[in-house]
């Protein structure tokens, strides 16, 4: 057995080696696209939606593109190795899909000038390093309008991940949407300090419902808070993907991340040789932010939600239109002006009226 085992192992080793070199040569013109995910592709949220985008590349570009991914990569020392391994194994376009991958992506991008890198939600760019993100706050404003109409207790429960600008901006936008139709809405926020931990997220949701919340909003990636809402008979919003199958009676809508178009376009640009370093921040109008079907609400609320989304999409309305004051009462955005992207990207303050303290 030993001898045959050895023989077969050697044969297998040789085969893999030949395969690897063969692929590198044959597909030099084609796109070989790598994805680095922070969560499991089965999280039904953030990483799941990125993986749907990866599959879109495969189905749209066919033989011109091949893809691979590594899931649940910690945002520490490991990320750099995974990214470098992708660059070394012949990938010519690499998407790193979490903020914490920014510095490792930048480091590896410097060492592989011929490989194209795309980092989601960061701010460091280079000739071969693009950034991209979506204006999820637009969807959150729409969700806020719905919540303001639907709440009976006037208490909204909000499960946050980390108090970073992305999440703070979402809370502010959501509450401005809610107050636009119902000035009495209060928000209670629990920080789960994780992006993906169904247990913790669910516990946070339970605590919020126990405190009187009858609408559940989340900025974490698993369907757990929405499932808790379903079990407790309150309403809620899906996160990152349409989670209606987890909460057929509770989900009002979901803010869906749709990376498909962007990913396909970027992979195609590599195939065509037209890829350039860019900074993309797409909203509802670009299709990156989608609202899942409006369910479990009366027709008038649905109509209002659709109208709000349409106004944001057409540019007629911007959720962050002044006057906007912060909690200290300081005027941050002047009357009639809209917030600049730079301010939105670095937002680390709550708007006036939010009865909570931002963790510092």
């Amino acid at each position, binding site marked *: 057995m030993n001898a045959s085992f050895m023989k077969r192992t050697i044969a297998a*080793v040789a085969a893999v080696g030949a395969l690897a070199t063969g692929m590198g040569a044959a597909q030099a013109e084609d796109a070989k696209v790598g994805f680095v995910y922070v969560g499991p592709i089965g999280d039904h949220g953030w990483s799941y939606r990125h993986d749907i985008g990866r599959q879109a590349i495969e189905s749209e570009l066919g033989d011109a593109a091949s893809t*691979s991914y590594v899931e649940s990569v910690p945002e*520490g*020392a490991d990320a750099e190795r995974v990214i470098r391994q992708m660059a070394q*194994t012949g990938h010519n376009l690499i998407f790193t899909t979490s903020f914490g991958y920014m510095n490792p992506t930048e480091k590896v991008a410097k060492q592989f000038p011929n490989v194209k890198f795309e980092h989601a939600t960061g701010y460091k760019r280079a000739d071969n390093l693009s950034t991209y993100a979506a204006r999820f706050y637009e969807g959150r404003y729409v969700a806020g309008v719905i919540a303001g109409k639907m709440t009976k207790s006037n208490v909204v429960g909000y499960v946050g991940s980390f108090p970073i600008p992305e999440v703070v901006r979402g809370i502010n936008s959501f509450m401005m949407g809610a107050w636009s139709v119902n000035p009495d809405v209060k928000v209670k926020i629990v920080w789960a300090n994780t992006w993906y931990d169904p247990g913790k997220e669910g516990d946070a949701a339970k605590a919020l419902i126990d405190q009187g919340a009858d609408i559940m909003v989340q900025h974490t990636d698993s369907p757990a808070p929405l499932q808790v809402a379903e079990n407790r008979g309150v309403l809620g919003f899906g996160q990152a993907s349409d989670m209606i199958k987890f909460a057929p009676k509770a989900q009002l809508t979901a803010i869906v991340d749709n990376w498909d178009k962007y990913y396909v376009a970027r992979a195609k640009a590599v195939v065509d040789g037209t890829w350039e370093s860019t900074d993309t921040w797409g909203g509802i109008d670009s299709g990156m932010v989608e609202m899942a079907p409006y369910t479990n609400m009366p027709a008038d609320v649905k109509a209002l939600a659709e109208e709000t989304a349409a106004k944001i999409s057409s540019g007629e309305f911007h959720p962050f239109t002044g006057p906007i004051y912060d909690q200290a009462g300081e005027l941050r955005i002047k009357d009639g002006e809209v917030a600049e992207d730079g301010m939105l990207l670095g937002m680390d303050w709550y708007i006036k009226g939010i009865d909570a303290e931002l963790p*510092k």
Partner: protein
Amino acid sequence: MVRLEPRRQHSQAMVYLSPVLAILMTLVVGGIIFAFMGKNPFDALYTFFILPISNSYGISELFVKATPLVIIAVGLAMGFRANVWNIGAEGQLTMGAIFGGGLALYFYDSESMFLLPGMLILGALGGAFWGAIPALLRTRFNANEILTSLMLTYVATLFLSFLVHGPWRNPEGFNFPESRPFPDAGLLPVIYDGTRVHLGTALAVFVVIAGWLLLSKSVIGFQLRVVGKAPQAARHVGFRQKRMVWFTLLLGGGLAGLAGLFEVAGPIGQLQPSISPGYGFTAIIVAFLGRLHPVGILFGGLIMALTYLGGELAQITLGLPNAVTGLFQGILLFFLLACDVLTKYRIRFGSTAAKGRTA
């Protein structure tokens, strides 16, 4: 009826052979699982265990990944030998990173050659400080160190989160939760150009040798072994249990703190909300994989590191799910424990022995 009967004498060779046997059986079972997943088992095993270390860069990454695991596990093994169950190395690692990293952030524009040594010392002190709390609670109030050390882990990680979201946040970082990058003087020098192998890796080897000497040649090492194997005898000859608790928790904490500092001053280069993917917990497995012996731990750490690297490559090149990594680690631990049990016990079928006992 099947039952386990203690062996009067167990083979000394088996004690050292059982990890090897466990690894071999893991490979066989792993291959079978790959076959069921529709992959050629030889390709898959090759990708998992050989491809990651098939070039010098891969080997260097293996060392980088194993460095914190080995350093922490050597410290923990000392405690485990003396029945001190420090489960909170992850927290001690975090405190080490905070203490040592804090110095780098305070002197963020320093070019002093004393910065790095200062960080190393503070890192070890930070970890030891976090280990001292369970030691105090155990020796003073007889509080179970498994619980206290574990719970302090959450305190430490939340404290780090507070610091990088608040007072230590990079003022030029657009409010994102991360510290300033450490100055060059506060980064561990890379000892092999073109890789990430840093000074900490070299020090890990030193820790292994020092741990081995401590255990085999020193009086306190002897006491550790006796306290663990025969606590009553140890008490009888006057070895103080409390002193063992203090020593092992301070040492284990200090080494974990050092490992944490190596991570932030090495491959990461700054403080951020998450600095370790659970090295403090994985090191517990490494300690047992290495038979609580520093040299064994060196190999155990390398094997554990290899499963991570292999898991990543299996995803990239074969499209296997990330769960394969955890699966392999689980199978390995299962077989290791099974081999241990069978080394110390024999399986008896039938009920003759049971009858004998009731008679």
